[in-house]
């Protein structure tokens, strides 16, 4: 297979397949199996190490993912911010710190699930595949940050246009094909994770309880009354 075909497959076909799967299957699962939408917490079965694994992981991955979204949504603003070296350093170090936090937390999650026999029982093969994907993804993300520094800037100039081209249905792989293989791996794995998303416990991020902070404390439901 020529390099061109491979690139087209990895950065055009695969992203569309994964995104399509993501949207179709999450909606389908929500409509048909809404019972299965749960964070499937295992805190009840093991409460000693839970905090030290789950909390760093969640805070880490939330900040890192949010960072990717920001760079994707407002690349120009980000470049302007990075035009001062000090601000660039602060941003990069913060991002790296949260990346490391994610990695440490994720390692903790995996070790906890391996070591507690009760939690192992409620860990499915899907979970293990997902953990492996996330571990490689976080590891490659941290390596990219260390080996190819100032990612917040080159993401804004090179990756954001590619991602936007995918979204606008006119894929342009010029920038992404020129990337080193480790970054390519990160991109491909990201799309694979998105495609795998609706088949995993990850769906719980879609049902975060936002109305709670505004609703009245007590909930009463009436039959036949709205």
């Amino acid at each position, binding site marked *: 297979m020529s390099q061109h075909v491979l690139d087209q497959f990895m950065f055009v076909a695969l992203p569309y397949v994964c995104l399509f799967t993501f949207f179709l299957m999450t909606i389908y699962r929500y409509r048909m199996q809404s019972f299965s939408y*749960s964070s499937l917490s295992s805190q009840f079965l093991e*409460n000693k190490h839970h905090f030290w694994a789950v909390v760093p992981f969640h805070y880490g991955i939330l900040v890192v993912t949010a960072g990717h979204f920001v760079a994707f949504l407002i690349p120009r603003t980000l470049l302007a911010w990075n035009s001062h070296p000090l601000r660039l350093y602060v941003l990069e170090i913060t991002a790296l710190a949260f990346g490391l936090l994610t990695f440490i937390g994720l390692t903790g999650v995996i070790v906890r699930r391996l070591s507690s026999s009760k939690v192992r029982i409620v860990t499915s093969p899907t979970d293990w595949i997902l953990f492996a994907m996330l571990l490689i993804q976080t590891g490659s993300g941290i390596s990219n940050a260390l080996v190819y520094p100032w990612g917040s800037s080159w993401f804004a100039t090179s990756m954001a246009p590619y991602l936007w081209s995918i979204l606008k249905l006119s894929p342009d792989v010029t920038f992404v094909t020129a990337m080193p293989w480790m970054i390519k791996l990160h991109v491909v794995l990201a799309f694979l994770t998105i495609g795998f998303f609706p088949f995993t416990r990850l769906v719980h991020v879609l049902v975060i309880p936002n109305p709670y902070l505004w609703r009245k404390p007590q909930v009463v439901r009436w039959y036949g009354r709205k």
Partner: protein
Amino acid sequence: MNIRSQVSMVFHLDKCIGCHTCSIACKNVWTDRKGAEYMWWNNVETKPGTGYPTQWEDQDKYRGGWEKNSQDKLVIKSTGKARVVPNIFHNPHMPSMDDYYEPWTYDYQNLFNAPEGADQPIAKAISMITGEDIDIQAGPNWDDDLGGSEIYAANDPNLAGLTEQQRLQLNSVERLVFYYLPRICNHCLNPCCVASCPSGALYKRGEDGIVLIDQKRCRAWRSCVAACPYKKTYFNWFTGKSEKCILCFPRLETGQAPACFHSCVGRIRYLGVLLYDADRLEEVANMPDNQLVEGQRSLILNPHDPEVIRGAQSAGIPDSVIESAQQSPVYKFVMDWKIALPPHIEYRTLPMLFYVPPMSPVIANFEDGLANHSMDSLFHGIDQSRVPMQYFANLFGAGHEGVVRYAMGKQLAVRWHRRAETVGDVDRATADRYLHEADLTVEDAEAIYRLTSLCTFEDRFVIPPMHREQAIEMIKDPYEVKAETGFGFVGGPQRGL
């Protein structure tokens, strides 16, 4: 006034024999499933004792219920609104399985399949979660009948405030005592579990006040488990959903008493409708501790009052439910006679399950080593009771003895009255004096006696017609509902991937 109806309950502790039939009925009907093995929506505890989960009443440990913050506002003690967001990944006050017990079974197959050897094969205990061998450390009734135990009974949180002498007395052999406390969900008026759910999956049914968890909307944030001060919401570790007592609503809707009520051997359970004023809930839940019992009573409305009846009708409560409320045995115990009290009302959830506090067993008075049953001390006074009044006050009176003393005094007076009536070795004047002291008429004493001792099925369970059929017809095909057998959706509780 915003009148609502609430299916309410009374448990008459003086009659509970601690047979656990209720627990087994409930277990067989509802929680005999994977992930729910450890749950006892109905459990019976020995008191004084630590209960299930262990020391559930110790809110310094479990942080259940409501508390007043520095601005005198009612907030959830575990994770209220502001704190739920940072704590959603790890609930800091979530009990774990170790606080309940790890369910186990026995490897019976080994009795058949064990290879031939020198010893008899045994059925080893194995965990129902991992299937591995288990060293059993605790069970749902681990301290059953262990009143007086230094390991269990001595750790009962209700012993707080008892003098050293009272504690010693509780442990002295002649005064050793225990009684039983059966517990189900209280279907509170101000449920902390409902208020704590980030997803809004928990709700109170408008028509009858039953508190339920919408299994499709529960996302396992676990707030309800931490928030319920009675620890009556449980986390299903397999399906990743919380579950709780549903007051057997599919049975109630077809006119049957809940399984635990129906099966009760001691006939201690009563069920009936109470009408209450929902507009005053917040006001009452905010009252000082010593006014809470009276405050909750003031919420409950007299179903015979024409004004209340009109108000209930305009609030859409069917006449059949109002009629049912007029015959409610719960109203008699809680409001007419005031001998049934809410458990731990200081948690401020306004529980709608009331307990008639138990009379301790009669103490024989010893004189020169011989039991003396002289008439004037036939029934010892409630202050000579083996269980100190302060203990019951901690459990049923938010620490205040008044309401408990009143309830116990009435029961004692009924005993004197009936002794005078049936045995006749107590003269009428003595019985009347006790009735007078207890604020009781002969008619009421007779009524208490009848509803306590001679109650039939129909006396104990006045189940309101729930009119679900009409309500359902408006929004769904009745045949579809029939196929769902009252559960709302068909499909196994399949764990997510």
